[in-house]
């Protein structure tokens, strides 16, 4: 394992310190915790928005803390949900009197830890609502399992819920718009190489030189299917088809597109993929209102990509385009 670090046990701590050292005008770390909050938190009269999860997905989630997105991000160990006590501290720190929305990615661990934190905060009389992002269509949706994972689509939930909260909406309104995004956002990913969790020191799976994984999540776990390597065109088709099977987009519908690198994929390749994806969107006569290409929800140094499509209505469109000013995402 080759990484830029000192002590595998200290990697999350040093990363958080590094973020605060780099952006002291924007971020502050709650003492003794793994929580980054907006410098000015709590913002009075604004719904507080908290997200987070295991580390290793940078810029998620600390990079999205700031005006128009998150008020706090809670970092767990690498690929490990943060614990309820940390999340609870985040909730308290961002509560500006209007309650707090938790944006949770649908993983058993995240759901349980955030849930326990919400229970703790409610005992303190803080109104807390939770939304659970499950945009990953790679996994079959089923009431017999824990359902679909939350992946890159989460960033659009942050963006839109954050915008509405910034406009002074109520907790119920912010929760409801977040759920609207969740119902309309679908993603699908793939990977060309695995990644290595620092503490474990070995890659999460093995892939031959001509193999790729389709339907990989963002935790270095294997995908749902292994195939031989595909061209960018074939890849765009596989990913788009799977997402569209679920969204069932109609001609002239307005959508936003997020092409997300998993960590080690050059931006060059993300744009090549987008070029091939755009041809499919055009063929379907979709109205692409907004396209975001880059690394937003990564999986350490995994090489791979996910595509996300969000079906828009006027409200979502306006909120998506609204100003945001965070370390990693600006509009």
């Amino acid at each position, binding site marked *: 394992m080759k990484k830029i670090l000192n002590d595998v046990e200290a990697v999350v701590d040093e990363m958080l310190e590094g973020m605060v050292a780099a952006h002291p005008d924007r971020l502050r770390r709650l003492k003794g915790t793994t929580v980054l909050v907006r410098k000015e938190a709590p913002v009075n009269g604004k719904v507080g928005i908290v997200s987070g999860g295991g580390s290793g997905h940078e810029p998620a989630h600390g990079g999205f803390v700031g005006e128009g997105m998150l008020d706090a991000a809670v970092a767990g160990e690498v*690929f490990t949900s943060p614990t309820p006590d940390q999340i609870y501290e985040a909730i308290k720190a961002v509560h500006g009197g209007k309650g707090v929305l938790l944006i949770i990615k649908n993983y058993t661990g995240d759901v349980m830890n955030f849930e*326990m934190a919400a229970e703790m905060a409610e005992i303190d009389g803080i109104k807390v609502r939770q939304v659970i992002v499950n945009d990953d269509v790679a*996994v079959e949706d089923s009431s017999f399992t824990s359902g679909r994972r939350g992946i890159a689509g989460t960033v659009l939930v942050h963006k839109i819920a954050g915008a509405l909260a910034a406009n002074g909406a109520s907790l119920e309104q912010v929760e409801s718009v977040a759920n609207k995004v969740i119902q309309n956002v679908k993603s699908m990913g793939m990977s060309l190489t695995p990644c290595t969790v620092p*503490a474990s020191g070995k890659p*999460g799976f093995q892939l031959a030189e001509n193999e790729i994984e389709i339907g990989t999540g963002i935790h270095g776990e294997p995908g749902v299917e292994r195939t031989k390597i595909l061209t960018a065109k074939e890849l765009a088709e596989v990913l788009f088809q799977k997402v569209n099977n679920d969204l069932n987009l109609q001609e002239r519908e307005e959508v936003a597109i997020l092409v997300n690198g998993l960590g080690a994929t050059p931006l060059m390749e993300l744009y090549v993929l987008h070029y091939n994806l755009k041809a499919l969107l055009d063929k379907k006569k979709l109205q692409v209102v907004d396209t975001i290409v880059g690394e937003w929800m990564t999986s350490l140094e995994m090489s791979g990509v996910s595509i996300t499509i969000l079906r828009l209505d006027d409200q979502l469109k306006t909120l998506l385009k609204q100003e945001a000013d965070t370390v990693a995402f600006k509009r």
Partner: protein
Amino acid sequence: MEVKNVNTIEVKWWIKKFQEKISSEKSYLTDLDQAIGDGDHGHNMARGTAEAVKVLEAKTFTCPGNVLKAVAMTFISKIGGASGPLYGSAFLKISQTLGIEETIKDALFISALREGEKALRQRGKAVLGEKTMIDVWSPVVAELEKANSLNHEKMRATAESCMKATEILEAKKGRAAYLGKRSVGHIDAGAYSSYLLFLSLAETLAKRGE
């Protein structure tokens, strides 16, 4: 049959043994979780149990219930992931059931384990056969209930065979569920750590009255 009790020292032994076993099998747990999960279970459990042992060494406790409450709180705040809230909730419920008794009769200990098992099912919303730690907890507790005593041989044997039996299951809960049929053929990491938990308890119980 001689009536035996579980005391404060013994539950501390239990947790210490658990910590040692987790620590020495950490990389195997990582391998199990890497095969069908995300590879952090070994580290999560090692971190959590090491912290728990530290807490137990730093304070004095007057009853098993208080020991296990401290363990529960440490697990909740130090493990993270799925296993943190699960082990944490189970231990919290166990400690609540034990209350402030200083020496615990087998029957009370067994019903505490049952309450822990229920809390675990409630928190994780999993049922038997979904390839999770439940697949060890539920049969072990049922076996003890049937035996009506903390029979350490049965405990060890059941935990071991049920842990091994998770290999042929298809996961329906936890991260391994995302793999569908590809999850078959691997032992569940949480089932393995739960096996170590009951193995530690069995070894502790075996020493009683020695």
